[in-house]
């Protein structure tokens, strides 16, 4: 009989928890060892209200956790949005059944920010991968993958929610294959073309000299969340670019980053290396504005050039 412990620190895992709880396969939820965030606090409250047992993970020692898992007869571990690297002792406890849910078509986009980089790179679809937890992060053998399309307007929150909603389907597939003892673990390729590392501060700044219109658009939607916003500079000041749209531009000989147009309906349009983008939603210390109002309030005029990087 499958008895799961779900390792998480986010409400994004709730659909998976609900699925396991509903089918009486959930023994407990192991919560991250971290400063409480609103997301974690909300999850804790929900678990308490739902009467689901929880265990707190201890970054320094697995002994107590393993004992507790054993006491609860846990034999399957599922990890999603947990952010701790597992030690070998815990991996061994599960004997190959500690499984991580990674929202990318592994081996592509290994790393802590797979959804951010997939959005930023303009991917049109992703996969949610269920793989064994191994000593090397995101490198374990794969049990199953399910497809998740990415809408061209999806932001980080949209995509996180889509992945979250798809978790029951993934867990259901796992449980069925496991019960029928036909889980087929396949090895991942060592090399991948794309990775999903932590984002350096410089990488949040729009580089008008190098980025295409689509890259700016995708960078804005990837960062359209509480943190990780795309930033653009006007002189010494920096502003958040929360949404941008690609627009046609036939003009030649204009430097990238130049303000091409300011119009109440067409908005604020900026030249890129391959065309132009409209800056749809801009975050400032004074509030959120559309491009037209932002430009009017902050004194942008057609012909001005935004800082390149």
């Amino acid at each position, binding site marked *: 009989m499958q008895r799961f412990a779900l390792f998480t620190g986010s409400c994004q895992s709730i659909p998976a928890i609900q699925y396991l709880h509903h089918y009486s396969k959930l023994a407990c939820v192991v919560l991250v060892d971290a400063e409480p965030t609103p997301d974690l606090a909300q999850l804790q409250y929900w678990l308490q209200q739902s009467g689901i047992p929880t265990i707190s993970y201890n970054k320094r020692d697995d002994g107590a956790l393993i004992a507790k898992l054993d006491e609860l007869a846990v034999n399957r571990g599922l990890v999603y949005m947990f952010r701790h690297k597992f030690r070998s002792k815990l991996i061994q406890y599960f004997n190959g059944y500690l499984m991580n849910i990674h929202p990318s078509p592994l081996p592509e986009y290994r790393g802590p920010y797979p959804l951010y980089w997939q959005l930023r790179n303009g991917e049109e679809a992703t996969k949610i991968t269920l793989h064994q937890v191994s000593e090397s992060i995101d490198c374990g053998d794969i049990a199953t993958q399910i497809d998740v399309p990415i809408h061209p307007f999806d932001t980080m929150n949209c995509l996180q929610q889509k992945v979250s909603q798809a978790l029951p389907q993934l867990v259901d597939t796992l449980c069925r294959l496991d019960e029928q003892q036909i889980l087929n673990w396949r090895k991942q390729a060592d090399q991948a073309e794309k990775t999903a590392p932590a984002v350096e501060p410089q990488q949040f700044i729009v580089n008008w000299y190098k980025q295409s219109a689509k890259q700016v658009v995708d960078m804005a939607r990837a960062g359209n969340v509480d943190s990780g916003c795309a930033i653009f500079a006007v002189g010494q000041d920096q502003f958040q670019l929360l949404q941008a749209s690609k627009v046609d531009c036939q003009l030649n000989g*204009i430097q990238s980053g130049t303000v091409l147009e300011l119009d109440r309906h067409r908005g604020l349009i900026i030249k890129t290396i391959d065309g132009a983008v409209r800056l749809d939603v801009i975050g400032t210390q004074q509030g959120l504005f559309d491009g037209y109002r932002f430009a009017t309030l902050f004194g942008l005029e057609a012909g001005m050039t935004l800082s390149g990087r």
Partner: protein
Amino acid sequence: MEKKQEINESKLGYADPQVDDLLKHSIRTQLESLLKSKLTTSQRLQLLQKSFVEAITLVLNDTKVEHQQLTKAFEAMYDQAVQSMALAELSQEVLTRQYISATGLIMSVQNCKHTIKDVYRIQGYARGIDQAIAGKLQNSPSITILYPACGPFAPLLLPLLSYYKDSKSYTPDQIQVILVDVQPGAVLSLQQLVKDLQLEDYISQIAEADATEFVPDTGIDLLVLEAMQHGFTKEGQLSIAKHLVKFLNIDGWMIPQNVSIRGMMVIGETEFNQQWKQVDYSHSMNMSSEAQQDRIELGELLKINKSTLLEMQELELQDGIKVIPANQIVLPTDVADMSKRIFAVYAHIETFAQEGVGQYDSGITHPRPDTSVYIDLKPKDIEHTHFVANSGDTVQFYYQLSGLPGFVPVKV
């Protein structure tokens, strides 16, 4: 007609939605003044016409007029003109739209309205145009003047025409003017202002058109060209001039008659800061001789007049960008502090018959520093927009006819 205007004016309050919020915000002083004064329509029109006549009378005067007196008269003209603009009930869309067209920057009507306060630009042009008109009318009973990209107030001609009407110098039978602007808001403002100034008889056409494509239906005697910004950049001045010079009559004149665009290497602090610390306002008369001596003049980059325009050859580059070959210059070798200097471009405008607009007299003749040019110095991070050269190098300048026109230096 008067009744409709009274209705408009009665609605003209600080919080009145008939005037767009942005325009209301930017001209609230003038609107409040209009409301408080409780003028009848005819009184307002009188004040408007008087302000136009007074401003131009001062600049046509051969005796020296104090700067403060001039600016006061031009402010009064501006105040009256924007009140007229408010009555045109422009929507925010037409008021604020600004964009880069294929041939140059199209400023918003909202931003263009300030040109009428550019005292010495209007002085240099008005005095030149006045003499050109007098010269033309000596040999011809009537003339046609074309003023492309004239903006919402056509400031180089409407004040002058008001003066002619008031002083009865020239009648509409002698002078016919075609005004052209691509901005619908400018055309609406012009229609209102021409009506308010009662100059309809002088104006044969107010056309909403791109000046680089406009085809007049009559020969032109005087072509008045203004659309330019400092350093002869951004606006489509050259494309407009090249297109419209073809429609000048064989003895027609372009105003300005000559534009000389020159380059120089300056110490930025001296040129743009120190020399203006002790003077009340920037003007060619107030330039410091020390700062001028400190300049390294590089010579003329481009000369623009009717003859050079007619023979100007365009080259088309691979990416479709058109350029006009300008002059070559040799960077001097005997300048010890060349690496500390910045390249700047300025225009000298001769409107007509010794009249002109000198450096610093106006926004359009204000020297423009170009920080993408590095002489005897390498930028920390070289971008493709940077131009790097050394003393002794020969530099060929091209004038790029793109959406943001300007000079492009190339090392020979």
